[in-house]
Structures are given as structure tokens and as C-alpha cells.
């Protein structure tokens, strides 16, 4: 099905207008998604370089690459850049912004100007944090625990805290926009149970944005105020309670990990059916699991504080609830695996990322059970076991999901096809590099190597060398997509409206879509993932 030449000259959101003003003042959700794509890639690069610096420094027990303070600033920059400026916004702000109006048959999000304001706030927050990093850095870790952040540290904690405070409003506005759009602007016939699971995942994520982000905004603001005006909210000398800070901090920061993983689950729920040509298995269960994860996610934050001085009573309750929140994730994994049954499975790059996601997310989720069980957490808390666990979820889960989504919808976003074989090779490199980097850290963790350590006893060196080797492979693996995506913008083959022969409203409009998405608002009659209805015979248009 060769792309018809007429589509080249058709008006789409990329060529409707040129010039910097048209991009910086755009109100089109697709362009804002593209702006976010560029800005979070920059943030990912910053966080990634910090990670490589950390891994190189940990090659030797004495940590010869940099001094103690520089190392502390590196892992803080890695944490802040990755958590607040890459993982939280990545899928919602890039794929969510781009796809939600397309998937529900709307012309744009409910509040386009607010959407642009959200990007500017993100850039402002990023700018302030980068200012804090460049003029001396901050060394409190992304967790800003008091009293170290308020009294102990003499680095730019106040400006970093304000940067995070400002960037919080960017995700609040994105969440608000998505909730109102999904509620008020669905195409006729698009009932809730016909919504694509990606939209369900964004809906659940937006609930967490709205309920959680303001709490970290006030917490981080209190840290900044306590440092600058020297008033004592968490100051133990005045009877303040550092453990109360941890409650306020983790009330947002645990649901924040579900902000990072839910959208990736949404992406996988879209990719798996397309490349197995099967209807998703257990649509209702996956949709309800997304909501269950979002709401249960707010009940479990105490499992970060089992050894922090929290009472045994509270720890028992939080441990119990933490096991309950693991169940919806398990349900999703089993439903995805069941979708493969009796399918017609193709192994294009998005599918490789999706299958990689399921495998790594399963390991990540199961190691979460180690940390949720009280007896073990006393030993493994704040060690590399925890670092390995959340990297399996964040890198193995959220980043694999993000890359899978990027590859799956790249033809729709850019109108061009990425080089398929190079993409598959880079997916495999990323998968191998990832496992070599983080699996040794489980062993290191149980051995007792604490996290955030610049120097460590010599017997941990061999495992750290494996981890650093893996990190360099992983780093190289991440460079490839950035290169060939940029390359494909210019030289890639022109993509047709539906190169994957996928079901979904977003594939019913040309790629890249016209400014108003649909010539006329589509009407939805049947359930999503109708792959058995689409003629499977055609060969996919694969570069």
C-alpha cells in the first residue's frame, strides 16, 4: 500500500505554519506534544549523563572520578532530572497530549491555552532547577529529606525546591486538561467502555496528578520557606517532626511512581493487541485495574518509612495495603500475556518494547513484594536492592513503555517511518544493557551496600563493575533511537495513515494529522481493539 503522493502536499499540523512564533505560541495539542518531546529528551540526556558519571565513579571502591560533594550533586541531579522532568511528564505530556484528542475524536484538548501554559511552566521549572544545578548544584537527593535539606545542606536547595514547586503546576494543569477533555469531549458513541485503554490509563494518571501533586508543591514550598526565612516547620529544635515531612513527601511521591508506570501500561495495552491481531484479553479488568492502582496508590506511602521511626502499628497497616496494591498490576500482566494466546504475533520494534516491558515490569513488581514485607525491608531499605527495584519499574517499565509508544505512534506523529531493523537492534541492546546494569544491584543490595554511597567496601567492587559495564551499553542503546528518530524526520519513508493496520480512531486520520484532527467528528459504533474484524491478510507497511 504505497503512500499516495497527494498526502505529501496535504495540510497537516507540521506544515500548516512555519517559524518559531508558530511553535512557541501554538495552541495545537499535537505541537505542544512535540515541544514536550524535545524538552524532556533534553532532560533525559541531562539525567542520563549524571547516571553515567555516577556509574563510572563507582567503578572503584574509593570513587576516584570525583569528590564526595560532586558525587552527591550528581545523584541528586540524576534523581531530580529523571523523576520530575522526565518520568512524570514523559508519556502523559508527549503521547497523552498528542493522542488523547485523536483517540476520543476531539479537535483539541478542553483548554488549549492552558496546555501551552503547562509547557511554559515546565520550561520555567526546568530552567530554575538547571540554574540551581549549574550555580553549585544541590546535594539532598530528589527526596529533600529534612532536617538535612533545611539545616544540613549548604547547597542551592531553595532554588531546586522552587524549580520542583513550579514544575509541579505543569503536571497539575496537564492532569486537569485531560480529565475535563475525557469527561466532556468524547466523540458521539464513544462510551466509557469503548475508550482505548491508553485513555483509561491517562484518566487514572490525571486523578493522581490532581490529588497528589499539590501536596508535594506545599511540602517543597515549606522546605524552601524554612530554609530562606529560617522559620521552623520541620525543625526538630522547635519540636518539629522530620518524620511528618516524610509523610507529606511520600503522600505524593508514591502515587508519583504510579503516575510514571500507568501511562506505560496504557501504551502496552495498545501495542500488544495490534501486533498479536487479537482483541485485548479482559478489557474491563485492565481498565478497572488502572483506576484501582490510582486510588489504592494513595494508601500505601508508609512503606517508604518502615525504618524511619514510624510506629509498628502504622507500618503493619501500610505493609498490608502495599500488598493489596500489587494485585491490580499482577492482573494486568496476566491479561497481557493471555492476549498473546492464539494471536498472529509480529515482532516489530514496538512489540519488542512491549514484551520487554512485561518481562521487566514483572521482575520489578515482584521485587516490590520483597520491600513491602516488613521483615525484609528492615534489611534491604535504602540499599541497592531498592535502587534495582525501582529501576526495574522505571527504566524496565516506564522507559520501555515510552520508547514502545514512541515507535508505535511515530508514523502518526512525524508522518515518516523509522528504520525498522535498526530499531529492533537498539531494543535488544537496551534490554541486555538494562539487565546487566541492574540485576547485579539486587545482589549488591542484599549484601548490604547502602544507596547514595560514593565509596564502598572493596568486596562490592566486582558487582559494581558489571553494573557500570551494563550502564555504558544501556547509554549507547538510548542514543540510537534519538539518532534515527531525528534522521527519519528528514529521510524516513513517508508513512500511510495506518502503517500498522491498527484499530483506533487515531489511525483513521492521515499521518501526520491535519490541524483539526478529523475532517468531521467520527462516530464510534463498536468496541475498541476490533482486530479480528480488520482483514489480517495485508502485509504491514514496514520499512
Amino acid at each position, binding site marked *: 500500500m504505497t503512500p499516495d503522493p497527494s498526502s505529501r502536499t496535504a495540510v497537516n499540523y507540521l506544515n500548516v505554519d512555519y517559524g518559531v512564533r508558530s511553535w512557541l505560541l501554538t495552541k495545537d495539542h499535537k505541537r505542544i506534544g512535540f515541544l514536550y518531546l524535545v524538552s524532556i529528551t533534553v532532560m533525559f540526556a541531562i539525567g542520563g549523563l549524571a547516571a553515567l558519571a555516577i556509574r563510572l565513579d563507582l567503578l572503584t571502591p574509593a570513587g576516584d572520578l570525583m569528590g564526595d560533594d560532586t558525587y552527591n550533586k550528581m545523584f541528586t541531579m540524576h534523581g531530580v532530572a529523571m523523576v520530575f522532568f522526565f518520568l512524570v511528564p514523559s508519556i502523559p505530556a508527549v503521547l497523552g497530549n498528542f493522542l488523547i484528542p485523536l483517540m476520543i475524536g476531539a479537535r483539541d484538548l478542553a483548554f488549549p491555552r492552558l496546555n501551552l501554559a503547562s509547557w511554559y511552566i515546565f520550561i520555567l521549572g526546568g530552567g530554575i532547577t538547571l540554574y540551581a544545578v549549574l550555580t553549585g548544584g544541590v546535594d539532598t537527593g530528589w527526596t529533600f529529606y529534612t532536617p538535612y535539606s533545611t539545616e544540613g545542606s549548604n547547597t542551592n536547595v531553595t532554588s531546586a525546591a522552587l524549580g520542583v514547586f513550579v514544575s509541579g503546576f505543569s503536571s497539575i494543569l496537564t492532569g486537569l486538561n485531560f480529565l475535563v477533555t475525557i469527561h466532556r469531549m468524547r466523540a458521539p458513541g464513544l462510551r466509557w467502555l469503548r475508550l482505548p485503554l491508553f485513555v483509561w490509563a491517562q484518566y487514572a494518571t490525571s486523578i493522581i496528578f490532581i*490529588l497528589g501533586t499539590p501536596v508535594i508543591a506545599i511540602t517543597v514550598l515549606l522546605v524552601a520557606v524554612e530554609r530562606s526565612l529560617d522559620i521552623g516547620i520541620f525543625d526538630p529544635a522547635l519540636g518539629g517532626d522530620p518524620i511528618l515531612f516524610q509523610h507529606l513527601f511520600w503522600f505524593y511521591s508514591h502515587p508519583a511512581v504510579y503516575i510514571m508506570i500507568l501511562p506505560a501500561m496504557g501504551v502496552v495495552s495498545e501495542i500488544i493487541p495490534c501486533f498479536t491481531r487479537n482483541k485485548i484479553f479482559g478489557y474491563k479488568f485492565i481498565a478497572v485495574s488502572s483506576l484501582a492502582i490510582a486510588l489504592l496508590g494513595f*494508601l500505601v506511602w508508609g512503606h517508604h518509612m518502615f525504618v524511619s521511626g*514510624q510506629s*509498628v502499628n502504622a507500618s503493619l497497616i501500610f505493609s498490608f495495603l502495599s500488598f493489596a496494591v500489587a494485585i491490580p498490576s499482577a492482573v494486568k500482566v496476566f491479561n497481557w500475556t493471555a492476549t498473546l494466546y492464539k494471536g498472529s504475533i509480529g515482532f516489530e520494534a514496538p512489540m519488542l518494547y512491549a514484551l520487554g516491558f512485561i518481562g521487566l515490569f514483572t521482575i520489578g513488581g515482584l521485587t516490590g513484594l520483597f520491600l513491602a514485607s516488613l521483615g525484609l525491608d528492615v534489611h534491604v531499605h535504602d540499599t541497592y536492592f531498592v535502587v534495582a527495584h525501582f529501576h526495574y519499574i522505571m527504566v524496565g517499565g516506564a522507559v520501555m513503555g515510552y520508547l514502545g509508544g514512541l515507535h508505535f505512534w511515530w508514523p502518526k506523529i512525524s508522518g515518516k517511518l523509522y528504520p525498522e531493523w535498526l530499531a529492533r537492534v537498539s531494543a535488544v541492546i537496551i534490554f541486555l544493557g538494562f539487565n546487566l546494569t541492574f540485576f547485579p544491584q539486587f545482589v549488591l543490595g542484599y549484601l548490604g551496600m547502602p544507596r547514595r554511597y560514593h565509596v564502598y567496601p572493596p568486596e562490592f567492587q566486582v558487582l559494581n563493575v558489571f553494573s557500570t559495564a551494563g550502564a555504558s551499553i544501556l547509554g549507547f542503546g538510548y542514543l540510537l533511537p534519538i539518532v534515527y528518530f531525528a534522521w527519519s524526520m528528514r529521510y524516513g519513508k513517508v508513512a500511510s495513515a495506518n502503517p500498522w493496520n491498527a484499530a483506533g480512531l487515531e489511525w483513521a486520520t492521515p499521518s501526520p494529522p491535519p490541524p483539526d484532527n478529523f475532517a468531521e467528528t467520527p462516530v464510534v459504533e463498536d468496541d475498541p481493539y476490533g482486530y479480528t474484524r480488520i482483514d489480517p491478510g495485508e502485509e504491514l507497511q514496514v520499512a
Partner: protein
Amino acid sequence: MSQHVVVPVALYQRIFVTLIVLTVVTVAVALVDLGEWNAVVALSIASLKASLVALYFMGLRWGDRMTRVAVLVALAGVALLFGASLNDDLTRESKTYLPAELRPEMLDFSVQGLDGLTPEVAPPPAPPPAAAPDTAHGAAH
């Protein structure tokens, strides 16, 4: 208000008068010593006033069900944060104290002090000053 409901002015005035009366009541009650009940009464009157403002002035009463559900979910979130953190605070085994503001040079805990001490007589090992298992919360009880 929801789609173009015009609320009669008289209703606003009645709600306003109720709010003023409730304010007077809450101040009056505050002047009477009810022990712990003072806080409970003050908060319930405040919640009543808040719901009056939300239902009538902000039109929740005529709004759609979705908005009301959302408000309840947010309130549940705040209650959850308060409840769980308070539960932890009340059941904590660790004892609190107001730490002395220490200046480093003040500490005599230098290493050389370890072997410099020569006791006149080795007193019997004193019973451990077992830190009181559960002093009332906060140092200033």
C-alpha cells in the same frame, strides 16, 4: 452553578445570615472551656459553614453528580493524609525530646578523652537509666 441556573437573591441572603450566626456561635462556644471538645465543635461548625458556602454560593447543589464526587474524593484524600499521619504519630514508640543546640567545639567527646579518665574508685555499675518507655508526647508535657 450549572447550566444557567439563576439563583434567587433571597436564598443568598438567607445563607449569608446563617453563616454570620454560625460565626457568632463558634466564637461564643470557643470562649467556654469544653476540654478536647472545643476543637471538635469548632471544626464541625466550620465544616457546616464550609458546606453551606460550597452547596449554595458555589452551586454544588445544582451542579452535576461528577463534581460532587470529585469534591468528596479530594476531601477523602486530605482526611487520609491527616488520619494516617496522625495514627503514626500517636502510636509511635520512640520518645521525643528537645535536643540541646550543640555547637561542635562544645563537645568534649574527643577521642583522646577516652583513655585520659582515671576514676577514683570503680563504683558499682549504675542501673541503666532506661530511657522512659513512653513519656507523654512532646517534650513540653
